């Protein structure tokens, strides 16, 4: 599925965020966040490349170099599980197992309805309430099975 923005809309977003190579990562993250499937599709990549003066293949190099940028469609909601040492020590793997059971997918996969993608993330500093997950920019800690189900249901009914 293609990005639902028109070429003009994509270029407007590029302009708003300072259309130059120096701001490239910021621009790409912005576009990825605004995309309904949380990724940079080929059309968007080519438009940005041309605007900032990169070749298409150099743009693809950048997109695949950074772990935070994706070139394949993901779910509407990205559930990121911290797998850094403190969260690992406080049993992040149990959180992963609950998510996998609840959503019926493995880490890195997307649910067939296109709603959820589960992935790992590095430490974001909330070790005292670990293990933590991050959804839509918000970090949730002190997780229990009930709490995780509650978060997922909340998103399903949003």
């Amino acid at each position, binding site marked *: 599925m293609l990005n639902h923005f028109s070429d003009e809309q994509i270029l407007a977003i590029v302009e708003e965020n300072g259309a130059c190579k120096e701001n490239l990562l910021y621009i790409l993250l912005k576009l990825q966040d605004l995309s309904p499937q949380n990724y940079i599709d*080929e059309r968007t*990549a080519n438009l940005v490349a041309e605007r900032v003066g990169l*070749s*298409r*293949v*150099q*743009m*693809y*190099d950048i997109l*695949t*170099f950074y772990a935070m940028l994706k*070139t394949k469609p993901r779910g509407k909601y990205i559930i990121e599980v911290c797998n850094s040492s403190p969260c690992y020590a406080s049993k992040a793997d149990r959180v992963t197992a609950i998510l996998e059971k609840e959503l019926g997918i493995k880490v890195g996969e997307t649910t067939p309805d296109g709603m959820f993608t589960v992935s790992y993330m590095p430490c974001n500093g909330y070790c005292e309430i670990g293990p933590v997950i991050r959804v839509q920019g918000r970090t949730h800690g002190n997780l229990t099975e009930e709490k995780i189900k509650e978060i997922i249901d909340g998103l399903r009914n949003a």
Partner: protein
Amino acid sequence: MHFDPNKMITIKIDGIPVTVPSGTKIIDAAAKIGIKIPSLCHHPDLNVRAFCRVCLVEDTWSRRLKTACNNVVDECGDVFTNTPRVREARKTVLELILANHPQDCLSCPKSGKCELQTLAQEYNLRENPFDSVFTRVPKQLDNPAIVRDMSKCVRCGRCVEACQNVQGTNAIGYHHRSVDFNIGTAFNNPLNSTACVLCGQCVAACPVGALNEKDDTEKVWDAIHDPNKHVVVQVAPAVRVAIGDDFGLPKGSVATGSMVAAMRKLGFDKVFDTNFAADLTIMEEGTELLHRIQNGGTLPMITSCSPGWVNYVEKTYPDMMPNLSTCKSPQQMFGAIAKTYYAEKNNIPKENMVVVSIMPCVAKKYECARPEMNDSGVQDVDYVLTTRELAKMIRTRGLDLAKMPEEEFDNPLGLASGAGAIFGTSGGVMEAALRSVYEMVTGKQAGDLDFVGVRGHEAIKEASLDLNGTTVKVAVTSGLKNAKVLLDKIRAGEADYHFIEVMCCPGGCVGGGGQPFRTTAAIKEKRMDGLYKVDMKSTYRQSHKNPEIHKLYEDFLGEPNGHKSHELLHTHYTQREVK
């Protein structure tokens, strides 16, 4: 960091003092005193990347192992290239590379020419202590010219360097990182759907078997052995000065006679010369140029011999297609004439004829398969083989080029002028055109037939010529990155040239993507010298003096740019979408 090239630095390498300009890389300083430091990713004509880590040396300054290809003499003490530590480290690096490489040298098209294979032998690698982590990925056969077998890629980046920084086409690049680090097109699109022009400079740069031309030798053998087929072969100018490389002849040797003899032994019914078709191209292109100048046609007119270059214009500068000469390339003119004029003259049904081309090029494989290249009524050129593929066939036949007698081309499509021969080097088409156009316009022979201003290796060469009071300005360039500079100038209205020669590959066809492996700029220069030697020794040095060309026009074509010429020898261009 900036280095002053006028400052000389003296260091000791393996105890031998060497004095080189500041900023010289250790690997080049060592080469100066005859010490070869092994490397896989280093290439004298390409930017340094230091990816492969094979060129490790030790120095007293850092007391660490360092790569010789990217570290400079200014920042090292005494260098040692052969300590136990160095040898052990290089060996380990090679073993690690081999642990991720298929061990199928026997069936690899690069075997015998592979730089990794050479290093494995030089370092006496027998049992690899590392377990293989190799996984095979399917070969990519998505175009008629280049095969990519990425299982064999060692990620040296030489192809990317050639594509992005030599040609500026940016069709292939790096992907991902760490263990997933790989080379390919944007979004893994098929090669021919990208900006790729199939020039094959990536193939020429690849040290291993990852990149190769699509092999058509078996099809040609089948045609040769088919008693119902009349198989004729044409051979491009730049092949004769390069094929000797694959048989141990000195670089740039002119091997025309022995090559013709070998091709006859392979079983071709007739052995013809693309140089003849180059003479024909000059007749058509020269006439077209004069017509454009005299009738306010689109100027500058740009040559159209180089199929990679034509692909580039169609894909990247489609607005400039009217500037391209409508002349077909010599190879395609040959095909059209062979299957009409020659076929009729000898009462051979064109359906029974097979035209094979030996080209220094991989883009020619795509060119001959273009749907518009069938003006004889059938496909004009059936198969294109690279210089390397011809060398392979000669070896298969058990012949040694160095021991072949000298033989002459067959006629009528085998007689050529020296002007046709220099088509194989950058500046050659221009020089050949000037030699004839000057005389066509002024009625006088140019005092000096050597237009040396358009010769040589420079990025952009310019010259002007007085034609009965009109000053005709010309430019010559090769390599697409240089061509881009010229095109942008023309687009911006900053150039007032009348005629431009562009060759896709740097140096022209002598450095084509189908030439023997391990070609360098220095070797290309020797091949250029070889072609000028052929020119000097030719009976005729101007295309329009070639008696067989006269005969062709008298008996068959009529006049240059006439009705029949337009039908058979001219073409049109189509804008192509780029992914």
